[in-house]
């Protein structure tokens, strides 16, 4: 029985697709059969971040409309046998996604996969609601910035009231926070919201804190989920987050500003 996870935020550009790519890669590398689905119909990004944009033949909408089978549309990742990507349609609109169609596709995936990750589009309208509707767990991606926090709070309210679990009176969706683009130096100067500030407002469990890292942009451009960049802070933070996601207790890193010793200051850190 698969767990359906939605990666959502409300606010755009905070790191949902980056997170979906790294989370799904991390789970696949840990041995779980994982599917990651792009729910952003019309603004398809996941295939670019995962480096499979040149292998897209059929997409999510094709499967829903019966033009292709799920097997024909799923793209197997070249880096892990456990990882499959279902890209979004670039040309159709989001009205092509119907609840029944999505339910059918998820139903088919649940039979053989351990984790199904739904990469949500930004916003709170139909696309985002469709992505979160069937979720068992939610990763709410937030930047330590006031409008992102407000929008995350909004999406939490929607998860509580408009998910299938809410509508059917089932145990609620398990929510957790992933704070991204964190800069401890700015937090210490008082320029940026701290983890504690954000948690005070959102009041949900903390999955992880991903530091601001230039490696994220490079990884995007290369088409390699940043979790694979072992030597980078962002990569390591994602690895920690994936472990916590599976229930392991891992201490949070990258929360305090690095104190540069004399040598580092002289020769660059």
């Amino acid at each position: 029985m698969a767990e359906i996870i939605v990666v959502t935020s409300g606010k755009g550009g905070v790191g949902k697709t980056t997170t979906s790519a790294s989370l799904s890669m991390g789970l696949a590398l840990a041995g779980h059969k994982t599917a990651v689905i792009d729910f952003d119909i019309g603004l398809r990004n996941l295939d670019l971040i995962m480096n499979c944009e040149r292998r897209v033949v059929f997409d999510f909408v094709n499967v829903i409309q019966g033009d292709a089978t799920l097997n024909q549309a799923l793209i197997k990742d070249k880096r892990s046998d456990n990882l499959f990507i279902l890209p979004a349609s670039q040309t159709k609109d989001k009205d092509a996604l119907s609840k029944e169609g999505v339910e059918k596709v998820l139903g088919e995936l649940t039979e053989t996969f351990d984790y199904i990750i739904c990469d949500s589009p930004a916003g709170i309208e139909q696309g985002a609601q469709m992505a979160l509707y069937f979720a068992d767990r939610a990763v709410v991606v937030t930047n330590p910035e006031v409008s992102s926090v407000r929008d995350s709070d909004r999406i939490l309210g929607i998860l509580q009231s408009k998910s299938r679990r809410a509508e059917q009176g089932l145990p609620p969706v398990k929510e957790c926070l992933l704070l991204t683009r964190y800069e401890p130096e700015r937090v210490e100067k008082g320029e940026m919201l701290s983890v504690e500030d954000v948690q005070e407002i959102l009041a949900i469990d903390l999955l992880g804190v991903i530091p601001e890292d230039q490696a994220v942009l490079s990884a995007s451009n290369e088409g390699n989920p940043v979790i694979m960049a072992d030597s980078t802070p962002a990569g390591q933070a994602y690895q920690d987050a994936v472990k916590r996601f599976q229930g392991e207790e891992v201490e949070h890193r990258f929360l305090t500003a690095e104190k540069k010793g004399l040598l580092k200051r002289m020769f660059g850190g």
Partner: protein
Amino acid sequence: MNLKIAADFQSTFVIEISDPSPNQFAQALTKHLAQAPAMFEFATVILAPHDLVDLPDFIQQCRDQRLIPVGVRVDLLDDQSLAQQLADQAQAQGLRIYPPSRHQSRAEKRHGQTEQWGFQFVTRPVRSGQTIYAQEKHLVVMSQVSAGAEIMADGDIHVYGPLRGRALAGVRGRESSRIISQNLDAELLSVAGVYQVRDDMPQLQGAAQVRLQDEQLIFEHLNAD
């Protein structure tokens, strides 16, 4: 069967009746409708009499003229017992009573009735964009109320956590309503329609309450020492 229900808004006319005589009503109604027959054709109407009337008769007269009565306003009557009779008639006819609140709170003001309202409990955080309305109850929120959320009650409001959104107590006129919170940090507060926005509120840290006194909101620390 799949039903699809959506809100459809159209104008409803309020017919203010100053003379309780059915004959007078018939004449006046005919005259008015003749001025714009198309507009009133199957229009929904609310009857607002100044005196107790024979409601079934008035309703039938409306229907004879192809008007559709949907409600009755009872607050134009000064005599509370007559207003209650009118309300009872309206209920018997299956019509909505307008405004149910003002009718109650006027009674409350004049006769000092204390309502036997219960409590509505909310145990999860109230998130931005969510609205809670405790109708004919007091509201107790056992968690935080986020900025961008709106909580309302006919009675009092208690928040066992930070109150960062909008809170409106006594929304149907109950002036004795209070808003109490462990951490009053609201965007807007209102008691019985008298409101203040954040900018105009005094700086209060910690547990505090808001109440209405002489048409003004009073902010007080709890357990002031």
